[in-house]
């Protein structure tokens, strides 16, 4: 698609694009290229010499069981966060979509956590469920649960998933509500006239019509769980105890900074880049389809 009415100028358009182009080249393409180059290099222990090692960093990575575990863990976290957050948000959106008194107020009261930063989410949740001073931990212990997420890896993982899902509720709610409101009332009325009860109407009419939104949100939630959980993990568990909450992004961070293993960290970055490109590709294809609906 192109505009018919345009300006004629030789230099002006380049001048207008220049600032963005400069920033993109310096802070995006150059570092991305460096990451790729770095991933083929190996530095000796003292950082004195660097040699080109082809795919050695990648091969080492895939020989390392910890890396596989981090991949599996990241996918598990993403799945758990997406499913729990999406289902709860869908329930709330279906309720808020009904012609209720004060529905605008409900919307306001449910969307604001979008603005809470991941590290703050981490601080709020670790405070609430801290083993010694957490308010909710008291009740858990009263119920007989031996609650200590600072020592128990599974409990730490549960905590991260809950906190990350909590933050994402508002976002999912907002998009579900928009999706629900775009379903024509007449379709639901037709189903009602045919004698379908509300539950049946939801599963046979609303849910299928909502599937583009669900798919879109699924991708967004997975990308969120991959990257934006960094702040939550860093303030709550720092990847621990052991490595029980170390995701792929967190591993890039620790291997590069604390471990000083830049070659491996760069190789991990490149693998992550591929994963994001695949996810975004899936999302773009879907968006195109939505446009032609």
């Amino acid at each position, binding site marked *: 698609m192109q*505009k018919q009415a345009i300006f004629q*100028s030789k230099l002006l358009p380049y001048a207008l694009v220049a600032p963005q182009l400069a920033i993109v080249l310096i802070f995006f393409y150059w570092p991305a290229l460096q990451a790729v180059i770095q991933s083929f290099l190996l530095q000796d222990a003292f950082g004195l010499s660097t040699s080109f090692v082809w795919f050695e960093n990648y091969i080492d990575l895939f020989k390392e069981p910890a890396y596989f575990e981090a991949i599996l863990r990241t996918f598990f976290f993403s799945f758990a966060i997406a499913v729990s957050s999406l289902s709860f948000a869908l329930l709330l959106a279906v309720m808020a979509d*009904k012609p209720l008194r004060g529905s605008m107020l409900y919307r306001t009261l449910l969307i604001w956590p979008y603005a809470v*930063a991941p590290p703050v989410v981490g601080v709020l*949740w670790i405070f609430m469920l801290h083993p010694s001073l957490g308010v909710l931990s008291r009740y858990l212990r009263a119920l007989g649960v031996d609650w200590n997420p600072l020592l128990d890896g599974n409990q730490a993982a549960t905590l991260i998933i809950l906190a990350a899902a909590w933050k994402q509720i*508002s976002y999912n709610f907002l998009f579900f509500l928009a999706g629900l409101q775009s379903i024509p009332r007449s379709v639901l009325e037709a189903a009602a006239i045919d004698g379908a009860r509300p539950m049946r109407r939801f599963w046979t009419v609303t849910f299928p019509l909502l599937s583009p939104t669900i798919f879109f949100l699924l991708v967004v939630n997975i990308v969120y769980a991959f990257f934006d959980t*960094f702040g939550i993990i860093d303030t709550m568990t720092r990847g621990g105890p052991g490595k029980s909450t170390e995701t792929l992004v967190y591993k890039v961070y620790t291997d590069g900074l604390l471990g000083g293993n830049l070659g491996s960290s760069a190789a991990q970055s490149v693998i992550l880049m591929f994963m994001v490109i695949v996810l975004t590709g899936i999302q773009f294809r879907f968006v195109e389809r939505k446009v032609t609906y």
Partner: protein
Amino acid sequence: MVEEEGFRRYIAHIILWIGIAIVAFPVYLAFVASTQDNAVIANGQMSLLPGGHFLETYYQTIFVGTSGSTREPVGNMMLNSLVMALLIAVGKIAISIISAYAIVYFRFPFRMALFWLIFITLMLPVEVRIYPTYKIVADLHMLDSYAGLSLPLIASATATLLFRQFFMTVPDELLEASRIDGAGPFRFFWDTLLPLSRTNMAALFVILFILGWNQYLWPLLITTRDDMQTIQIGIRKMITTTDALTEWPIVMATAVLAMLPPVFVVVVMQKLFVRGLVETEK
């Protein structure tokens, strides 16, 4: 009309209030903790009602900071966060709107190549290229500076794409009309296109401000000086020291202060926020 019996409506109200409670409880708890005495909290005996230390805690948090190792007033951190968020939001909108203008309203060699060069940046968040980016910022001597905090986060195409889509919907007749009036590319941009883009710019600003304010990993890497910390980094450093020494009321007051500006923006500018969120995700 789809029938909605009274009973079902009650259920809906109840479920929504439960949802609101779940969403609000951690934040309520943070506020309550920020008004109580540290010793009581450390004992695990915290009450669920606000205490009497509100003014004292918030005064210390904003103007003095913790009494531990990093003694940095949170007020200063908030200022850093504010400057960073504004630079990111304004910078991104400014460079994006002019490059989108060039791409839509001019024909020039490599136009589409340049568009794709910018477009591809959509795909990769800063997290996957942190160390090389860190090295470049260090080489440019931009560590511990506002430029280093904001420039790498401006390098993304969301806004350019949005403005491009919007410009495509602007009727060609407007350009023809202002051309007849003798307007050149600058006049047309300033007098016609910019006023038309106002709502889009505002919606985008709201989203970018929130994203900028909430940045974490990048500032964590490139700020080493305490006086350049953003509030998100400051809060993490406060709980670094061993548990027993953590001053929870101050940590929680900082958490509340860190949430206040972006939550305020969402609630007060809800229409723009929703619009911006839906548009940027397309």
